[in-house]
C-alpha cells in the first residue's frame, strides 16, 4: 500500500507551501508596491507555486491511498528551545486531511488571487490588499500543515489579523471600520478560549504535538476508568469554543455577516478556503478531546446554527448577506456532522463547500462588479448579460442545494446520514434534534439559494439603468469562476465516490462502523439520500413558486408574518442584544474601574500627598511661631539690653572718663567695704 516514501524533498516542498506566500507577503509589503503592476504578480505567483506544490504532494498522497496515511516532520523549527517538557517546536503533520486541505486551500486561494487582479483593479490600496491576501493564505496553509497546537494557534491568529485588515480594507467607510473590529474581537473571544484549552492540555500532558496528544488520550481515559476527566472535558469544550468563534457558530456568529464589508474576494477567501474552515478543521483535529457529552453539545450548536442562520438567510435582500448566512448555516452542517461522529462527512462537506462557496462569492463579486449594487431587488435578468457568471453560480447553487450528482449532494448527504445514524443509535429526542434541524435547514438552503438565483439572474430587469451597464467580467475573473464551477459539479465524485469518506477513516476518533452500527449506517444512508433529495426539491420548488411563477407573493407573506419577519430579518436582534448587554456591561465596568482609579487609587495617593502638605503647613506654622519665635525672643531681649546699654555710650570722651572714674570709685568702695 504505502509504497511511496515521503522523503526530505517532499517535506521541503510541503514547508515551502506556506513559506512561499509568507515570503511573498514580506516582499510585497516592503518593496512590491514599487514594482511593475504594483507587484500583484508576486503574491499571485507565490500562490500559484504553493498551489502547484500542494497539488503535487496531494497527488502523491492519492497514489498511496491509505486511510491511515500519516507522515510527520518532527521538530523542524525550534520556536521555544529547552528540555522536552518546556520545548515548543514546529513541524509538519501530513495526513489525508491536511493533504486534501493543502491542495484545496492552495488552489482556491490562487484562484481568488487571480480573480482579485481583475476585481480590485484600480483600487487605492491595491498593493497592500495583495500583501494581506497573501498572508491570509499563509495562515491557512500553515494551519493545515501544523503538527502542533502552538503553530496552529499562531496561524489561526494570523488569519484573524488578516481578516481584520482585509475586512477593513475600505476603512474610510465607518461601517467597514466597525466590522473589522467586530470580526477580530468576536473571534478573539473564541481564541482565548482555545488558548486556555491548549494551556490545559499542555499543563497536563506536556506537549503541543497533535500526534502525542492523540496518543495520550486513551492513556488518560484508561487511568480514569474509561471516562473523560474533568480537565479534559473542559479543555475539549474550550477548544471547541475557539472553533465556534472562528467558524461563526451561534452565539459568536455575529461577525461573519458584517465581514461582508470587505471586498468580495476577501469574503470568498474567508468563507470558502480559510478562516471559517479553520474552525471546522480544528474541531476535527481536536475530536478526541471531546467527551461524549461535549460531542452532543457540538452537534447541537452546529445544527442549531444551521437552521438559525438559514432562517435569517431567507429574509435578506443583500446578495452577499444571503451568502454570508448560508455560510454560517453550512458551517453548522459541518460542525454538527463532526459532532455526531461523522468527522469525515463534515470535512468532506468543508472541501466541497469551499469550492462552491468560493464560486458563489466570486460570482456575486462579478455581479457586483457589473451592476455596482449588492441589493438583489435592483437586479434581475442578468443571465443574458453575464452568461458565464450565471452558469457557474447556477451549478454552485445546485451543489449547495444538494441536487444529486453535484458536489454538495454527496457531502451533505454524508452529514445527514451521520446524524440519522446518531439518532438511531441513541434513540433519544436530544440525539435526534441534530437530524431534525439539519433536514429542515437543508430544505431552507435550497429555498434561499434559488431565491438568490431567481432574483438576480431571472425575471425582468428591475433597474434598467444598471442592467444596461452590466457586462461580463474579464478573463481573470471568469476563469477562476469556471474552474471553481467545475469542482462544484465534480467535487463529490471526481476522485471516486466516497473517496473522502474512505480515507477519512484514518482520522483520529473516527470509528468505523461494524455489525449493527454498520447496518444502521446502511439503512440511514438510504433514508438520508432520499430525504435530502426530497427536502432540496421541495425548497427549490417553493423558491420557483414564489419568485419565478409568482404563485405566492413574497411581500404578502412578509406582511402576514409581520413581527416574525421583522424579527428574523433583523437577525433575531442578536447584535442589538449583545450591544445592550455585553458591550454595555463592558463599558460599564470600564467606567467603574476608571472612576475607581481616578478617585480611589489616585485619590488615595493624592490624599496622602494632601496629608503631607497639611502636615507641612502645620509644621510651618509651628516653625514660624514657636521655634522661630523663641529665636526671635532671644534676639528681642538682646536688643532690649542693647538699648539700655547704649545709654552709656554717648560718644563723648569726657562722659566715658566720668563713668570710668565712677566705676573705679565704685569698685574701690566695694573692695574697701569687703575688706
Amino acid at each position: 500500500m504505502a509504497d511511496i516514501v515521503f522523503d526530505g524533498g517532499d517535506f521541503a516542498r510541503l514547508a515551502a507551501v506556506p513559506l512561499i506566500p509568507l515570503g511573498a507577503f514580506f516582499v510585497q509589503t516592503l518593496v512590491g508596491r514599487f514594482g511593475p503592476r504594483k507587484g500583484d504578480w508576486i503574491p499571485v505567483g507565490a500562490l500559484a507555486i504553493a498551489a502547484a506544490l500542494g497539488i503535487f504532494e496531494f497527488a502523491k498522497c492519492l497514489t498511496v491511498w491509505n486511510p491511515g496515511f500519516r507522515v510527520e516532520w518532527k521538530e523542524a523549527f525550534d520556536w521555544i528551545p529547552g528540555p522536552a517538557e518546556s520545548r515548543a517546536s514546529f513541524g509538519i503533520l501530513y495526513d489525508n486531511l491536511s493533504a486534501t486541505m493543502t491542495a484545496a486551500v492552495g488552489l482556491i486561494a490562487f484562484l481568488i488571487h487571480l480573480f482579485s487582479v481583475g476585481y480590485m483593479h484600480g483600487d487605492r490600496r491595491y498593493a497592500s490588499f495583495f500583501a494581506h491576501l497573501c498572508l491570509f493564505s499563509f495562515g491557512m496553509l500553515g494551519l493545515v500543515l501544523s503538527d502542533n497546537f502552538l503553530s496552529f494557534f499562531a496561524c489561526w491568529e494570523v488569519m484573524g489579523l488578516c481578516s481584520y485588515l482585509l475586512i477593513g480594507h475600505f476603512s474610510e467607510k465607518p461601517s467597514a471600520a466597525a466590522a473589522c473590529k467586530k470580526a477580530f474581537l468576536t473571534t478573539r473571544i473564541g481564541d482565548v478560549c482555545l488558548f486556555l484549552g491548549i494551556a490545559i492540555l499542555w499543563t497536563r500532558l506536556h506537549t503541543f504535538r497533535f500526534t502525542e496528544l492523540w496518543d495520550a488520550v486513551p492513556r488518560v481515559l484508561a487511568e480514569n476508568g474509561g471516562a473523560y476527566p474533568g480537565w479534559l472535558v473542559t479543555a475539549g469544550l474550550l477548544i471547541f469554543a475557539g472553533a465556534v468563534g472562528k467558524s461563526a457558530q451561534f452565539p459568536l456568529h455575529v461577525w461573519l455577516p458584517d465581514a461582508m464589508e470587505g471586498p468580495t474576494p476577501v469574503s470568498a477567501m474567508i468563507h470558502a478556503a480559510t478562516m471559517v474552515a479553520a474552525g471546522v478543521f480544528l474541531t476535527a483535529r481536536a475530536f478526541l478531546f471531546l467527551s461524549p457529552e461535549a460531542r452532543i453539545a457540538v452537534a447541537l450548536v452546529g445544527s442549531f446554527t444551521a437552521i438559525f442562520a438559514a432562517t435569517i438567510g431567507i429574509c435578506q435582500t443583500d446578495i452577499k448577506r444571503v451568502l454570508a448566512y448560508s455560510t454560517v448555516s453550512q458551517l453548522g452542517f459541518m460542525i454538527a456532522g463532526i459532532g455526531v461522529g461523522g468527522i469525515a462527512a463534515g470535512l468532506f462537506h468543508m472541501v466541497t463547500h469551499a469550492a462552491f462557496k468560493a464560486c458563489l462569492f466570486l460570482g456575486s463579486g462579478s455581479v457586483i462588479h457589473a451592476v455596482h449594487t449588492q441589493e438583489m431587488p435592483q437586479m434581475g435578468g442578468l443571465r443574458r448579460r453575464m452568461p458565464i457568471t450565471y452558469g457557474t453560480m447556477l451549478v454552485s447553487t445546485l451543489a449547495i442545494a444538494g441536487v444529486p450528482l453535484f458536489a454538495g449532494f454527496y457531502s451533505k448527504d454524508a452529514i445527514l446520514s451521520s446524524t440519522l445514524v446518531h439518532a438511531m443509535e441513541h434513540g433519544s429526542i436530544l440525539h435526534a434534534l441534530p437530524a431534525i434541524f439539519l433536514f429542515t435547514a437543508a430544505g431552507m438552503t435550497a429555498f434561499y439559494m434559488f431565491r438568490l438565483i431567481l432574483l438576480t439572474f431571472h425575471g425582468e430587469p428591475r433597474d434598467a439603468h444598471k442592467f444596461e451597464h452590466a457586462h461580463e467580467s474579464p478573463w481573470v475573473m471568469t476563469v477562476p469562476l469556471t474552474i471553481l464551477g467545475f469542482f462544484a459539479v465534480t467535487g463529490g465524485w471526481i476522485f471516486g465516490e466516497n473517496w473522502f469518506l474512505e480515507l477519512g477513516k484514518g482520522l483520529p476518533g473516527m470509528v468505523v462502523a461494524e455489525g449493527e452500527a454498520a447496518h444502521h449506517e446502511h439503512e440511514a444512508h438510504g433514508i438520508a439520500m432520499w430525504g435530502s433529495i426530497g427536502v432540496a426539491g421541495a425548497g427549490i420548488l417553493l423558491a420557483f413558486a414564489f419568485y419565478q411563477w409568482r404563485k405566492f407573493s413574497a411581500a404578502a407573506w412578509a406582511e402576514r408574518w409581520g413581527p416574525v419577519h421583522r424579527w428574523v430579518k433583523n437577525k433575531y436582534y442578536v447584535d442589538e442584544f449583545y450591544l445592550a448587554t455585553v458591550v454595555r456591561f463592558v463599558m460599564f465596568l470600564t467606567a467603574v474601574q476608571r472612576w475607581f482609579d481616578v478617585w480611589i487609587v489616585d485619590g488615595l495617593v493624592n490624599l496622602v500627598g494632601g496629608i503631607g502638605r497639611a502636615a507641612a503647613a502645620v509644621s510651618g506654622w509651628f516653625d514660624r511661631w514657636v521655634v522661630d519665635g523663641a529665636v526671635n525672643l532671644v534676639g528681642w531681649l538682646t536688643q532690649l539690653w542693647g538699648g539700655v546699654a547704649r545709654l552709656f555710650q554717648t560718644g563723648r570722651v569726657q562722659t566715658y572718663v566720668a563713668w570710668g572714674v565712677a566705676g573705679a570709685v565704685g569698685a574701690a568702695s566695694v573692695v574697701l567695704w569687703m575688706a
Partner: protein
Amino acid sequence: MGWLSSIDVLTWIVFLPALGMAAVMLLPSASKRAIRGVAVLVTVLAFALNLYVYVAKFDRWSGAMQLVTEANWIPAFDIFYRVGVDGISLPLLLLNTLLFALAVPASFGIERGVKGYFALFLLLETGVSGVFVSLDFFLFFVFWEVMLLPMYFLIGIWGGPRKEYAAIKFFLYTLVGSVLMLVAMVACYLDAVPHTFDLLKLQELARNGQLDGTRLLHGGILLGLPFQTWLFAFLFIGFAIKVPVFPFHTWLPDAHVEAPTPISVILAGILLKLGGYGMLRINFPFAPQAFQDAGTFLALLGVINIVYGAFVAMAQTDFKKLVAYSSVSHMGYMLLGFAAGTTWSVNGAMLQMLTHGVSSAMLFLVVGVIYDRAHHRDIARFGGLSQRMPFYFGLSSLGIFTSLGLPGLAGFVSEAMSLAGSYEKFPTLVVISVIGVVITAAFFLWTIQRVFLGPLDEKYASLPEISAREVVSQAPLAVLCVALGIFPVLVLNWQMPAIETFLRLIAPK
C-alpha cells in the same frame, strides 16, 4: 592608551554615556548640532559595545555571572565596585542601550535647553545601565538613585502642562521605594556573616536560610513577623512601585503623559523593567520562602494589573494615557509569571519585559509622531489618518498588534509563555486574566478604528507623512517586533540558563 583597554567592557558601557555627559557640559549651549552629535555617538557606541558583548563575549550556555570585575571602593564598609552580567541582565542591558540610542533621534525635536537635556539624558543612561550590571547592593542602590534625579528634571523641565505635579509624584513615589530598599539593604548587610553587600553572596546566604535576621536587634522580629517577611515586603514594595504594581501604579500615567516622547519611551521601555529586574535579582532570591508563601498573593496582584489595567485603559481618551495603562496591564503578565515560578512562566515573564520594552517604546514613539503633528492626543478627535499617513499607520499597527499579543509578533511569545506556564499553579487566575487579553484587543482595536480608520477629518487633510528621522527611531523596533515573534530563541537561548539558576535559588526547600 593601554589603560583604556584595561578597563572592562561593562564599565565602558556604563560610563561611556557619563563621559558623553561631560563632553556635552563642556560644549557651548548654542552648538546644538555638536551636542546632538555627541549624544548619538555615545549612545550608539554603547549599544555597539553591548551588542558585541551579547553576541561574542557572552557564553550563552552558562547560567552563571560573567565578565565579573571587582575593585575596592569603600573598604571600611565592605563596599566594592563589582559588575557583571548574566542571562537575565544582559538582554535587558541590550534593550536599554538600544532604546537610548533610538531615543536620541527622537529627542531632536527638543529645542529648549538642549545642553541640559542631553546631559541629563546621558546621565540617566549611565544610571540605568549601572543598575543592570551592579553585583554589589550598595552600588546597585547608588545607580538606582543616580537615575532618579535626571528623570525628575527631564519630566519636570521638558514635560507637558502638568509637568511639576507629575515630576514630583514620580520622584516621591520612587523615593519611598528607595527608602524601603535602603532599609532592607542595610539590614541585609548587618545580618550577613561576614558583612557584605555582594548580591551573589547574599543570595547564597538566603538560599541557605542564613539571612534570617538573627544577628539583628530582637532577632529581626518586628510586630511578631519574622525578618524574612519584612525583608520581602520592603523589597517588594520598593520594586513594585517601579513596575508598577496595583495599587502603586498611578504615578505612571501622569509621568507618561507629561514626559516628552523620548523620555516616555525610556520610562516605559526600560525603567519599568528595573522593578522586574530587581525582583528577579534581589527581592525573590533574598527571601525565597516568603516568596513561596506570597505566591498566590503576587499572582493575584498580577491578575489585577492585567484586567484592571486593561479596563482602565479602555476608558482613556488620551492616546498616551491609554498606552500608559496598557503598560500597567502588560506588566501584570510579568508579575503573574514570576509568581507562578515555573520554567515557562518565569521565562515568559522575563521575555515579557523585553517584548513590552520594544512594543511600548514603539507605541510611545507612535503617539509622539501624532502629537507633534496635531498637537493633541485626544483619540476621539482623530479619524481616518490611515488615508493620509499609510506608512505611519503600518508602523502603528505593527506596534499595536505586538502589544495585543498577536502570534508571529513578539508580544505573543511572552504572554503565551507566562499564561500557559502559570496555568499549572493558578488555573483560576489565568482564566480571569484572559479577560484582560480580550479587553486589550478591544481597546487597541477601538483606538485604531477611531484614530486611523473611518472618514478623514478635514483638519488633518494636510498632515505630513512620518519623517525619515522618526522612521529611524521606529524601524529597529519594528524589526524586533517581528524577529522576536518568529525567533524568540534570540533571547531565550541567552536567558534560559540564568533563569534556571534563578529557579534553583527560589525553589522551596
